[in-house]
């Protein structure tokens, strides 16, 4: 027989502190936060390009040495790109990065690796990262369409 769960009340200190006099109205706080985050758009865009290049180098090395441990690094960078791109509304880049996360996660858990599938994703991400907000007008949808087809061919439904 398993031992029973013990339940107990805990003081909500966050609620107590956040209700102290002063502070901001939630909508003002949200507006201020959006402004502050927007101030990082330039450095974040530069960081996305940097990360995409870093990922390209990692993938090239992994392919040359047929080293499946490279998938861990590619996954981590791709996951970081997904988070950053999403924060600034770069939806095409975020989708491409998410797709690469799916692939690398699949390969690192023992499935036979397809380096061409990785390469096409890395190239697509590098292109979308360098285009930044202009990606939509530059045909991001056709890039994504190609990546979706590659992903669907490699990953089991």
């Amino acid at each position: 027989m398993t031992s029973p769960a013990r339940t107990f009340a805990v003081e909500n200190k966050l609620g107590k502190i956040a209700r102290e006099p002063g502070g901001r109205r939630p909508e003002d706080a949200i507006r201020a936060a959006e402004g502050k985050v927007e101030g990082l758009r330039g450095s974040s865009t530069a960081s996305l390009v940097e990360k995409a290049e870093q990922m390209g180098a990692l993938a090239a090395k992994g392919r040359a040495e047929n080293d499946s441990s490279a998938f861990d690094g590619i996954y981590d960078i791709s996951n970081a790109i997904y988070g950053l791109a999403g924060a600034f509304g770069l939806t095409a880049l975020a989708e491409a990065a998410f797709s690469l996360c799916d692939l690398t996660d699949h390969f690192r858990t023992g499935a036979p690796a397809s380096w061409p599938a990785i390469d096409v994703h890395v190239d697509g991400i590098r292109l979308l990262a360098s285009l930044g907000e202009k990606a939509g007008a530059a045909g991001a949808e056709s890039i994504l369409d190609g990546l979706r087809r590659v992903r669907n061919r490699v990953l089991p439904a």
Partner: protein
Amino acid sequence: MSQGFGKSERVNLSTAEILLACGDLQGLNILCEMFAGFGVNAPRRCQSLVECKAVVQERAINLMVIDSALSDAEGYEFISWLRRAELDPNSFAPVILLTGHTRPSQVFRGRDAGASFVVAKPAAPAVMMQRIIWLMNDQRKFVSSPGYCGPDRRVKALGPPVGMKGRRHDDLSAEVGIAKTPNLEQNEIDALFNPKAVA
């Protein structure tokens, strides 16, 4: 979601101790700027599991926002450790887990690690503020059991699943017992809906 907060009410996080953790420096900068906009002064910034552990062992924290990807471990690992670390009050503090790409095996991992809330990226400031307000009003009890340690995962008080006996000592039976007092008369029921001033 905005329980307990009207238009004129305010959120004061200026004296709150907040821990923000993300393995990616740029991601951490975004979190810090977001919380600066919320009025947070000097949050504790961490990129690694080691740094997170050091901070919670050193001071009382009122809210933690932990990315699932730390530089040396996964955020889940820190939350599981924290909940069982017996660091009062930090082991019981609210924790928001931020997730990026989520593997199928990890979908329930955040919840099972003991996070108060799991927020999927991209986490817009409006979403984060909603979650903070929800946590300010959170009255859930804390559960400690061999398989789980953290806030009660039953957000809605619906009782145990249909056909199952509850595991908690205060879970009520689904069987309705025999009435111990006489039924109310119709005029007594009507009076409940039409209260009248008493002279």
